């Protein structure tokens, strides 16, 4: 294993960060350990659960299986970008009103995946929410129905 380090520039939630990382370092590790983004949760380390989902240059990606060196120059957004100075956005508001979270471990990743999905699919059916919007995320607590409800409500609110 190499101890050689590589300099990488990232913009995280609008703030510039210069980090020096091993080539093997994962984006999730860099964001959690060097930038302090502990909202990124590592549930499976294998791209299956989606709890680590962030936006890289506007696209939802699973940070647990991206190398940090691949993201040099990228603009990263985490769930902390969704609220406006502590005021919850539409999607976040719908999640609490519809009781779409229990333990909350999957929630930040789901919010980021769905935030991107709704940009491209502003009016999904319930079936599309289940098969497309939530395709890359696992939740062990809720049974998903309230998450589907929340996305449905948020999509309608965002359309208005």
């Amino acid at each position, binding site marked *: *294993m190499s101890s050689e380090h590589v300099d990488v520039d990232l913009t995280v939630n609008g703030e510039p960060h210069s980090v020096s990382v091993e080539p093997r370092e994962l984006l999730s590790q860099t964001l959690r350990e060097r930038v302090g983004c502990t909202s990124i949760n590592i549930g499976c380390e294998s791209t299956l659960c989606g709890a680590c989902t962030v936006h890289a240059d506007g696209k939802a990606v699973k940070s647990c299986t991206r190398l940090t060196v691949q993201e040099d120059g990228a603009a990263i957004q985490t769930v902390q970008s969704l609220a406006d100075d502590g005021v919850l956005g539409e999607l976040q508001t719908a999640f609490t009103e519809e009781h779409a979270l229990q333990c909350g471990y999957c929630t930040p990743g789901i919010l980021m995946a769905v935030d991107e999905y709704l940009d491209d699919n502003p009016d999904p059916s319930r079936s599309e929410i289940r098969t497309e919007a939530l395709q890359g995320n696992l939740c062990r*607590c809720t049974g998903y129905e309230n998450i589907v409800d929340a996305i449905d409500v948020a999509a309608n609110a965002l359309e208005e």
Partner: protein
Amino acid sequence: MATDPDDPGIGSETPRREDTRVLLGESKGTDDIELSDPLHAQFIRSENAHARYTIDAADARAMDGVVAVYTADDIEASETPTPRPFTLFAAPMTGLDYPDEALWQRCLGAEKAHYHGEILGVVVAETQRIARDALAAVDVSYDTLDPVVTPQAALADGAPAVHDDVPDNVVFAGGQGDEAATADAFEQAAYTAELHKDPQRISPSPLEPRSAIGRYDASSGQLDFVATTQIPHAYRRLMAQMLSYPEHRIDVTVPDMGGGFGARQHPYPADALVGWCAVDLEATVKWRSTRTENQLVENDGRGYEGTWELAMDETGDILGLRADITYDLGAWVARGAASLAEAGNLLMTGLYDIPAAYSHVTGVVTNTARIDAYRGVSSVPMIMMLERLVSKVAKQADMDPAEVRKRNFVEPDQFPYEAAGGALYDSGDYERNFDLGLDAVDYEAFRQKQARLREEGRYLGVGFSCWTEVAGLGPCGHIDVASWGYGSVQIHPTGEVTVYCGGANHGQGHETSLAQVAADTLDVPYDDVRVVENSTKEVNEGVGTYASRTAALGGGAVTKCCEKVVQKGKAVAAHEFGVSVEDVTYRDGTFATVGDDAQSLSFGEMASKAHLGIDIPEELEPGLEEQTYYDPENCTWPFGTHIAVVEVDPETGEFDFQDYVATEDCGVQINPTIVEGQIVGGIAQGLGQALYETVEYGDDGTLLSDTFRTERVGSSGGYTLPKAEHVPDVTIRSTETPSPHTPHGAKGMGESGSIAAPGAILNAVEDAIEPFDPEPMTPPITPEKIWRAIRGEDA
């Protein structure tokens, strides 16, 4: 009952307080806690299920940044006391010899490895990455032994012994119920049904992998843990016992935790070893597991194999139930395995008035990870098999499965009802609740539609599953473990309220629901109440959150404390008014003289007076703080029925849910939104048992399902959790039969879905393909199995 949405009390669907910090990305789990200069532990784990081994850690020890590598011998040689085996808490089934200390779980596999993933040693390094690199540099040589991977293999003649002290692999064996009366019932039966399709071993799989931090402060002698556990106070007690460390110098904090589901209602060897390393190195030591590590060693659930039988007379009265079960305990017998089996036996007759029942359970050890509590625990296999049998025997008798159920329900006037397995059910109206479900699926019309569509070659089916559970665990004396509900309530001089509860919130919404209970009972604004849990530093005592106990026992304790506060408040007010206590009323946050309200004192004014302590009755102490160890008379027994409606494609074996109805009765609902969340979440886990999930070991005892995957079962490797597209929308209907013995009538509602859904789904699929006269299927049922069953093959 306060139902004003701006002032939520019991019954309000107010959104949860816990949500905002999660939605803002500000929640903090164990792995998120900032630490100054922690060391990082990684565990050397056995790659074999059964082997003697030697460890060469010279290369790892020589690596830069490695602080220590401990093998079992190193730990034994240290002055820090060697971690002791897990102490068993729970009592055995009546009349059983319990496993002796030889079988209590060891923190390390010292003389040999007993299962894939067992800890053989510890690496401690300056960073997590160095620790992992060092782990890779540790050379373990194995001399493999033949493993025992299944319960049947454990019982086979000449089977290898998992533990040399237990040559036959049998840890306990015994029965509950009346064996002779049950045999008589089967003699008299017109119809009998038999099933031996085993409720398979599955993994609770909370989404957050387990982790633990041990912080040792040499100057004070304080040992603090931050950990993923459902039982902070019992964790403290167990750490004290295992580490031979004074309990009053240990504290445990549980930050936000990503699920538990029973798998974290006891600590693990890793927790004790993290604490041991912290003491030995006089440092802060952190461990964070990988997903694979989590799947390897976190306890599984179910693991029942056996034969279940039901006897019915010609009129449709169920006469008897019999079960002969082999219970896979895994390699070590930890906390109360036999009492878990006992709990399922208590309620093996479900909601039915079955006069005779007998269940014999043989607990065996295998070279696999431990099996212990998982949501629904042993109620899952017992209810699943009972409900499948009721549908099967009804079919044999050509009777309607709904009618057979209604005919046999315990009647409302039979409560308290002593079930043949030993449970004492507290209250219920099962038929009224069941009828709600029949209405919701329009049952008669469904049967007509089913018959009509069958003529068109379409196969719809309906499946019932009626359930109950041992909730609100439970009275002291029910089991040999502390099982009261701890609460204390502090009233600030301003009238604001801090509630301290001995549970552990990790998704259940206690910060919200227990505040509702206190606000309602004290008649104060909800926003004036704060709830504290999850910490031995802030809460004096507690038993933890499991077995659907916090609504009944935590809520019950909070209610009792609040009632004591109001009583003292009345005495303070009476003194102020110059009247006797009987002449003071309390409502809407105000104490007043009875009848005329001539004199009054607000709750806050009373609190201020009590706190000041100058102008209060002589016999009262100043201050306003009440505490209780609430010990209920009985467990609570919530109940309900799940009804699945499916359509099967006989060409492919694929099926769709047409409907899913859950009718529930958990007594008084503190927050119906949270109750419904628990129901639907539980259904997804029960659906996982029915359709997707199975823990797979290879013939050599290697765990194959050691990571998540998203495909259906069928190929080997990976563990399939249900995804959003796999779970149907659920229609929920409720009745409310308050528990007669909890102070506010709540029964608890955490496990209905995982208990009821498997039977409902399996019965629905088998009802759909009934024209093909299939043999019963073994869960998890895949399209391939359904396709085979339709073609008369074993599935």
